[in-house]
């Protein structure tokens, strides 16, 4: 369990980092290293060069841009977990963060790293997809933004251009009437890789009726997916148990489930439905609680 030989550079600027990635085949960005380092130790990852972005100015921090909260790619998960801005403006992310690894991994693991790593079971990408956020990237050739729905292309892979660095992660903020969130996971152990996860955020009017709704599923699929049909169908409803079950059924049936030795595809589909319903019910109750 010793990594294959590799070079390591810690540039001070984004352009320098982008240049290194452009000029070295098999170079990889390292941020918190909580996935990459064990993968390298097991020789499942063999980068020729590690470009450490930890010392790049301006790549860390949480800022409120009104319509969205922007996270510099190097922002540690623990920092986001403790942030009052996240707690008040992004309650769904706040609800998901305690499920991300363990305290020691969150101390080093980053928001950008989790998204770029694109683990199917990861919580932060699920929240990003559910809230219809986006990421920004830059490379030696340019820069751009990709919306979450278009970002992930498979397990551990994204549509970011090769040799690009993820620079910022943007989570939209819902303004206005009370919102509520729900987040659930099925995993063998607390903080283990999720067999299935579900995230939901709803907004209710004074009568408690759902006026905005989003629901996403992770863990069970090649990458997290927002249930667009269910989110639309449930908007305008009272979110009764019957509403939720009816609203979810079509999208859950259509999920392209991944399977492995730990959980059957039947399990993942069944539990996806159950956890989505729980997350929605929690979100509804949470939002209505805020009315009082």
């Amino acid at each position, binding site marked *: *369990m*010793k*990594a*294959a*030989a590799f070079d390591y550079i810690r540039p001070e600027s984004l352009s320098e980092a982008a240049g290194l990635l452009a000029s070295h085949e098999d170079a990889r960005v390292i941020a918190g290293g909580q996935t990459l380092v064990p993968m390298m130790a*097991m*020789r499942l990852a063999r980068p020729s060069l590690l470009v450490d972005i930890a010392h790049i100015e301006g790549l860390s921090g949480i800022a409120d841009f009104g319509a969205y909260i922007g996270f510099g790619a190097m922002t540690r998960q623990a920092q986001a977990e403790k942030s009052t801005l996240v707690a008040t403006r992004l309650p769904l992310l706040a609800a998901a963060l305690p499920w991300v690894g363990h305290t020691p991994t969150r101390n080093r693991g980053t928001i950008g790293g989790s998204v770029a790593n694109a683990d199917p079971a990861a919580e932060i990408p699920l929240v990003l997809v559910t809230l219809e956020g986006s990421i920004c990237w830059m490379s030696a050739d340019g820069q751009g933004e990709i919306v979450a729905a278009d970002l992930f292309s498979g397990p551990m892979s994204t549509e970011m251009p090769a040799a690009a660095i993820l620079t910022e992660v943007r989570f939209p903020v819902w303004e206005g009437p009370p919102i509520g969130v729900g987040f659930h996971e*099925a995993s*063998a*152990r*607390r*903080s*283990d*890789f999720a*067999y299935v996860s579900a995230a939901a955020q709803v907004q209710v009017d004074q009568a408690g009726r759902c006026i905005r709704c989003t629901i996403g599923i992770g863990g069970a699929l090649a990458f997290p997916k927002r249930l667009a049909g269910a989110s639309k169908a449930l908007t305008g409803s009272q979110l009764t148990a019957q509403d939720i079950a009816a609203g979810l059924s079509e999208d859950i049936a259509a999920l392209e489930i991944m399977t492995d*030795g*730990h*959980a*059957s595809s*039947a*399990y993942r589909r*069944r*539990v996806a439905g*159950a*956890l989505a319903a*729980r997350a929605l019910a929690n979100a509804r109750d949470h939002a209505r609680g805020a009315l009082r």
Partner: protein
Amino acid sequence: MNAPSNFTFVSSDRRVREDRRFVAGQGKFVADITETGMLHVAIVHGSQTAARIVSIDATRALEMPGVVGVVEGEELRAAVEPLMNGLDTPRVQRYPLAIKHVRYHGEWVAAVVAQTRAQAEDAAECVDVVYETLPNVIDTEEAYKPGSPPVHPAHGSNVLLDRTFNWGDIDSDFAASDHSLSLRVTWGRSSTVPIETFGVVAMWDPWSETLDVRASIQMPKYADQIARALRLPGNAVRVHYDVDVGGSYGVKRGIKHTVLVGYLAMKLKQPVRLIEDRLENMESGDAHGPDRIFDIEVAFNKDGIVNSMKMRAMDNAGAYAGRAPFQLGKPIGAIVGPYRINSVRYQAVSVTSNKAVQEAVRGFGQSPTNYAIETMMDRVAEFVGLDRVEIRRRNFIRHDEFPYLIPSGTRYDSGDYHVVVDKVMKHVDWDGLIAERDRLRASGLYAGIGISACLEPSGGNSSFEPLLNSTNTTTTWMESCRINVDALGHVTVTIHTTSSGQGHETLASTVIGEILEIDPDSIRIVRTDSLTSLPGNSPVGSRMAVMLGGSCFHAANKLKTKMIAIAAKNLGCAVEAVEYAGGAFHARDSNKKLSWLDLVTIAHRNYHLLPEGFEPGLEATNVYQVPTGNELPTADGRVQMYPCHSFEFHCILATIDPDTGKVDLRRYVIGHDCGTVINPHIVKGMTLGGIAHGIGAALLEEFVYDSEGQMLAQSFMDYLMPSSHEVPEVEIVHHCTPSPFTVMGQKGSGESGYLGAPAAISGAVNDAVRALGIRFNRLPMRMTAISDAIAEAKSNNAQSR
């Protein structure tokens, strides 16, 4: 505790003296050892489940930076003896590296030695091995069938052991019983997986012709086996016992690792180190535990009294025999559990397969057996419509029946099972617990109560060796202690084995302090090495409280007797008239006194004052033989197994999430009776750790193989150990029934908790889903499988309505 304690230090709330250095990070483990010029080994692992090795080409590897050499099986075979088998299976030969064939995925094919481990790993990737694939067998019952692809063709079949014991008149007892039923339960392959993997550093000194070995070891006769395999005299191997071992519970045997590294150290004349990484430990460290199918038929009366049991235990030993098949033998010493079962038929079957090799695991086969027996008792209760606690009460051996001879020849020392159960029922508020379960059920969860009543045989002898291997006549199974009082009056004790966290220093100092009436913290404990040590058998079989404790007790009394004789002469009185208190001596009939230091001075400096025939100095040695189990088995296969039998009664309330299948242990109570407790903190730690281990075996941990023999749980991502989140608060209810066979009434507790937890958790899960008409008969019960079974049952029940 029910026994009033007359002890000063024993059983008292004293801290564990080893803890300080471990908590401060000052333990000295094998990976902390660095020798000048030390070389590192990496292993080339077989990539096939069963194959002939066509060729091994190390040319590329040998050209890589830092590489010193590559060794393969044929070279090793010429230089070393095959590793020992427990059973009489001489044609199942095993060497540290594969010879001509690989027999399981990951088997060691070659070893690369380099200046650093990273260089060795780089080079190991460049050793080119060509294989010709052979048929394989993974499934236990397939392997048992005649005609299955033999893992060792020279042996003729995959059957290592197939022996049936008949203890008592089974057929008559079956005929005379009202009912019988049969069941099958399966124990999936799990293990103890310590934080520290196995590691060894060996160095050869050609001038003294000595091989120095420092290893993460917990193994009887380790030095003997290395010497034999390396064709060295026994006194040429020095195994250092002062290396801290970072966890074991059975698996830290490392004999193949050590023979390989010892050979390399002798060949290269440089220190050589091999420390398994996690992948090696899990796939090819040969450290998996029992993998067992139980088929049981039980005969009982309508009042729930169990009369007779037929049990077939079929174990999948993996690719080589090793010592693991003996794990079918040890449970014979408690084959009826805590119950009065009149007769037993026991068929023990061990088969080879193309899985990794097993090693000893905590309880040496007892926890799987307890799971089978307890599941049987739950089934009988269900059949006759009796409460699960009541049926156990009816079948328990009564307190006044001890010592109690069970059909297979072991005499249980003592127990008070009814009282322990009463105490637990009272503590847990049994009626309240049932009400709570029913409230949880009404709230939409599946909820169940599980109980188990299990024995922990302890004090470890090896009676299963002669029982299962007639060429083995071992009845000696000892532990040793030496006490020396120096000329300044300070006490040093040597103990003669490694510790893998059992707290021997606390144990030895507490017992000796108790006898000599001196502060245990003033006693120094020293671990020797195999060349300076007295005979011993290492901390296996839950034996050290009984065996090291017994040895310390006798050595201390021997020393005291010697000191009293010296005192009598110098006080001018008879030996019987000397009173010993708090380390001082006085003559009962006069006012004359001798202090500890007076006596030490006489012993060390005043030969003229010593009784005639006394040797100078103050020293006492004891080599203590296990109290019972000193005879060979009878012709009909009865033998006294371990001397002591601790008892544990588990009571659990569990819920199952109806959707995810996740089991939540909401209440965990254990009643525990291990006789006299030497140190309560050590016993508590053992019990809590044992329960955590049992939770893993019951719900999470398994070395899963696919049908082609690929091991799927190669890291902690897939081999799921319980974390602190999964282990509930455990309430321990104490009881003390002293053993009549041990020096202070103590019994073992090194396997406590683990021996009953899987059975009780299985009982709780099955109680929870009983209304659905389903059962779980296999461990681990993974949440996903529980959920799938519940969903299927619900769907079937809906259709049948």
